[in-house]
């Protein structure tokens, strides 16, 4: 039995949730047959209703749903029925809610980590491709790859585990998961911003001088992302990973050689501001990726 539960199919939280609901309804049916006070099916209904929670919020949202159902039944019973019937119904609802919440917590509980990691892997991969596309747009003015990669990023972003922000998400995991989520969203914003900035026609001489450094940057970002994905898949890293801090410094130096201005000067020309903004965003991408790596350690 234990080996069956180790099958990859049981890693899927939707399947685990469905099995939990089926088990709970089965228990509720038996309880309803032997112990129901009203014979109106409130036990089964309450058990199913309190189980409709998001990933990682079984207890809090289950209790919330129990109180909601109890309040609705109280109001409806007071309006259309007697106090005695109300007490009996509330008894049934309490039994049903207990079965539902207990089943949600005990039988095949949500594997928050698996769900979280499974959505982030493809997203990180699409980030790498998007960044390569953006640099290609910047250096060769080739829009196509960046656009294709952007569509992929947008698709993956729809699968982001936004349930980490749901009310009642497991308090022990809240901080770490939300931090990781925030950094992942931040990277998407940085990449979209880089895409917009890369469309700007920059000085050809500057781009020629920084060409090799940008290519190095792309390689290192992709290496970094691959390393993050390896750690997310719970595998060991075979070799160390360089970050691209050095390349960013080189890009800035080349820029300063061509446009020797201080950033404190506020009458910088428009094209220069775009380039400085691009290198700022690059630095932020770097620091977000490093933060992700630190969070995974």
């Amino acid at each position, binding site marked *: 039995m234990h080996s069956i539960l180790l099958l990859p199919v049981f890693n899927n939280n939707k399947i685990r949730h469905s099995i939990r609901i089926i088990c709970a309804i089965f228990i509720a049916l038996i309880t309803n047959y032997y112990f129901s006070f009203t014979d109106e099916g409130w036990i089964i209904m309450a058990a199913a209703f309190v189980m409709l929670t998001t990933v990682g919020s079984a207890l809090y949202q289950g209790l919330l749903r129990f109180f909601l159902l109890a309040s609705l039944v109280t109001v409806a019973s007071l309006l259309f029925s007697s106090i005695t019937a109300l007490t009996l119904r509330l008894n049934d609802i309490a039994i049903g809610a207990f079965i539902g919440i207990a089943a949600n917590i005990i039988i095949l509980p949500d594997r928050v980590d698996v769900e979280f990691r499974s959505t982030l892997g493809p997203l990180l991969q699409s980030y790498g491709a998007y960044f390569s596309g953006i640099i290609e747009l910047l250096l060769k003015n080739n829009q196509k790859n960046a656009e294709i990669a952007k569509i992929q990023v947008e698709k993956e972003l729809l699968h982001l585990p936004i349930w980490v*922000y749901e009310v009642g998400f497991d308090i022990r995991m809240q901080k770490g998961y939300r931090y990781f989520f925030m950094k992942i969203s931040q990277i998407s914003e940085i990449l979209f911003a880089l895409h917009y900035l890369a469309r700007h026609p920059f000085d050809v001489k500057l781009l020629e001088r920084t060409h090799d450094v940008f290519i190095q940057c792309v390689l290192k970002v992709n290496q970094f992302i691959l390393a993050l994905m390896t750690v997310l898949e719970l595998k060991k890293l075979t070799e160390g990973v360089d970050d691209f801090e050095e390349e960013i410094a080189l890009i800035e130096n080349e820029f300063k050689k061509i446009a020797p201005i201080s950033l404190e000067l506020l009458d910088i020309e428009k094209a220069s501001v*775009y380039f400085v903004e691009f290198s700022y965003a690059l630095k932020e991408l770097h620091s977000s990726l490093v933060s992700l790596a630190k969070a995974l350690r």
Partner: protein
Amino acid sequence: MGNDIFTKTRVLERYQEGIIFLFSLFNWIAEQRIKKSLADCFYALAKVQNAQFAAYLRQDYLIQQASYANILNHQRQNFLKKIQYARKLVQYNEKFSAIFSKIENLYEIICSLHLLKFRVNEYSVFEISKREMQGIEKASTNLLITVAKNKKIDTAELLDEIHLFETLFNRTLQIVVRDPVVFLFFIQDLYAFNSVIASI
């Protein structure tokens, strides 16, 4: 005999007219669907813009960060759903591809604009610029909603608000803020937002 041919030709012409009418009707319905989906994108974009500004305008932002992040994530996901649906429709109709790419461009600019919230650590700076930020938020979201309603837009209000913010930047922010160049990026992105929306 001649009369018979004449009647047949008339019937054929009627059929042709009917087919043309059906084609133009389907075309009209398809165009209305695309227009509706593009309008939905603009509405969703306005909501994203509104949610992003919470970082500068809401006093409880630092305390209630998770709740604001939740709102922003929902609005962002809503926008991404709308834009993907619109992309599916637009790919069969070249006529609307220009406006579609402008929506994408506007979203990128909004992302670039709001990198400011990660770049400025001192919340008191946003207290200084609260009035100007409110003006920019109101003017920019109003513009997006006006475009969504397919009405004529006037970017003068947004330009005025950008000028007010620029004045504040020149007088105060560049002295007070540790890294004033980030506000320069913000202003430049605002001008870019304005020019894209004016070109719609």
